[in-house]
């Protein structure tokens, strides 16, 4: 069966966009740094959504019609002044309407504060994320020598696997005796100023551009390649334990998948995720479960033309996968189909544990969830 893939659909009316807009990405990027106070200059509707999507403290102006008529500065000033003493740095993020109004806030923003326009009409979550990191990096204006070690990139709190991915990346780097430098986004903002030259990504969907990326930890082969490369950059690194773990992990995955395949046909799968997670899941499913990916749609296609809810619904009406990897949107469209959530948004409560998707633990966790779901044992 030929894979039904929607990556480029020219239509205004594809239905609801399945990926958040720039303001969510910008807030998520800034809120990842513990010493940054994020002030979202937006209406209560936008704020309510962003507070739902980003699990961090966000301060909002909750704009009303009055502020649109008379200006948002007074309200923004009030909020900034009430929180600025709590943080090292303040970041103001303008949603669509304040961005359109283009007011100048420089006379009351604290020194070093950054104001970023992240209107939804200018891009999606990944765009907003990158835009914010760029703004933070230019503020830091790197003056220190780069730190020893490796930066961990691709941390975005909207991604429910981000905390687990961070822990797994730290564990693997510790095992290889390679120090961790900056986190993006994570830790404190000043670490960006002394980021290392090398970067490992736990989720390339959120690339900060900090350091030179030496690969990702998504997938067994990617992980092996990344650490082989790092071993050349860090002669003192000890990757032998890590490669032992890699081999043992693959052995477990092969054994469990073979056990499944002795009793079942390979599954037909639909994957709806970012390019990075979709590629990772495709590799794992194809390599170890002989799965056929019969439909897929990317949240961040290179073309920029993302299939909307309507297009995905039509795809799922046309195809009947045994298993769907995606978000709660896909789960809602095919409630009878086995489902593993890997993509935002996920129904609240469905990912509470800080489980990773990256690294060896991530590969094991994903395999376990897939097998349990397919066999109906959870």
């Amino acid at each position: 069966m030929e894979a039904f893939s929607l990556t480029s659909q020219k239509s205004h009316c594809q239905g609801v966009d399945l990926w958040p807009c720039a303001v969510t990405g910008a807030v998520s990027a800034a809120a990842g740094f513990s010493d940054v106070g994020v002030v979202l200059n937006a209406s209560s509707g936008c704020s309510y959504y962003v507070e739902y999507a980003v699990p961090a403290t966000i301060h909002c102006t909750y704009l009303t019609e009055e502020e649109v008529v008379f200006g948002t500065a007074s309200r923004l000033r009030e909020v900034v002044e009430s929180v600025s003493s709590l943080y090292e740095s303040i970041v103001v993020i303008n949603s669509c309407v304040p961005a359109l109004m283009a007011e100048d806030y420089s006379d009351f923003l604290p020194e070093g504060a950054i104001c970023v326009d992240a209107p939804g009409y200018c891009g999606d979550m990944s765009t907003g994320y990158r835009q914010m990191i760029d703004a933070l990096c230019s503020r830091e204006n790197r003056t220190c020598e780069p730190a020893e070690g490796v930066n961990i990139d691709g941390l975005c709190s909207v991604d429910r696997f981000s905390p687990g991915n961070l822990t797994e990346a730290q564990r693997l780097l510790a095992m290889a005796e390679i120090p961790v430098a900056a986190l993006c986004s994570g830790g404190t903002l000043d670490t960006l100023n002394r980021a290392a030259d090398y970067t490992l990504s736990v989720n390339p969907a959120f690339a900060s551009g900090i350091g030179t990326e030496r690969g990702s930890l998504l997938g067994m082969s990617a992980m092996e390649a990344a650490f082989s490369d790092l071993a050349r950059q860090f002669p003192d690194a000890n990757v032998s334990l890590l490669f032992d773990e890699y081999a043992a992990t693959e052995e477990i995955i092969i054994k469990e998948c073979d056990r499944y395949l002795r009793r079942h046909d390979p599954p037909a799968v639909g994957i709806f995720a970012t390019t990075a997670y979709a590629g990772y899941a495709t590799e794992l499913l194809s390599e170890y479960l002989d799965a056929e990916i019969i439909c897929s749609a990317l949240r961040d296609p290179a073309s920029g033309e993302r299939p909307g809810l309507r297009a995905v619904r039509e795809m799922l009406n046309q195809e009947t996968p045994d298993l769907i990897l995606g978000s709660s949107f896909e789960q809602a469209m095919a409630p009878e189909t086995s489902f593993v959530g890997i993509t935002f948004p996920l129904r609240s409560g469905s990912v509470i544990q800080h489980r990773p998707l990256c690294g060896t633990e991530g590969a094991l966790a994903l395999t376990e969830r897939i097998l349990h779901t397919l066999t109906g044992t959870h």
Partner: protein
Amino acid sequence: MGALAVTAFVRDAVTLIHGPSGCAHLNATLFQTTLMHQDRFALPEILSSSMSEQDVIFGGEDALRTSLDEAVALGPDAVFVVPTCVSETIGDDVETICSEYSCNGDLPVVMVRAGGFLGGTFHDGFVAALEAAAVFAGGATGASEPARQRDYPVITIVGEKNLESEVEENYDEISRLLGLLGLTVSLRYVRDITVGEMSLLSESDLLIIRDDPDGRIEELCSSFSAAPVISGFPEGLKGSFAFLQSVAGCLGLDAGDALAAETDYQAAIIASFDDLKGLSIAFDSFGFQNATDMLFAELEEYFGITLAASGTPIPVPFTTPVGSTGLRLMLREWRRFL
């Protein structure tokens, strides 16, 4: 969001959000999360004009027209167009474009006056959508059809809170109470109905509004029907009695048997919570939209539960429980804390 809480529940209509795609996404995400609490997995047909930066600079009317062409091509019975903060700020003439489409074809294209936060609160958008949908009260063409002779009264529920978790339970309670009078609900305006079904609105013999804090929904009702209006779902035991009496009064029925049956029903509820008598609760009124002293007085009078600062803190429902059954469900939850 308030507008969508109405228009998305017209089964054969589509809702087009005129704004950046993120606006539709955030509404749909919150919508979906809320509906999952009701175990509803099917997502309503919501479209977006996906305004780009280009559209914001040069005007989004072309994007709206393109999207409307595509929406119409889907073959719905109506299209609701909901502007957003962005399209309102840049001044797109959404109303004129909707009128053009309605005039040029058979398909009604209705603008809902709810432009994001420029359109007011959730409730403002909700009422605006009820107003917009009322164009179908006299039939899809807007012309009233002559009322048919019926051997039963047409009872319409207006403005159900489609996103509240207990929406179906509340409806069941109203149906139960009406059932005591031998009545049934004919139309739920607007919950899971079609455009055609809305024509029944003007034939209503009784309109029962879910909640009408500022009287605007009752005012709206008077624009399409001269039928009597009950302006809120009943609260608690006494509220249920009063509701039965009001419905019977409006329709000229004898409520005697219904009141007797309800008395028995309530007596069973009161007896089942005998173990709570003498206990105290501490209560934060946040969450109750219409917290009334009457409800607390009722809890004390019938159940012996008193309100005191030193009492056991109890979870607060977002809205006042509907009917006798709603009170029973609330007390069951409280029992675990008390």
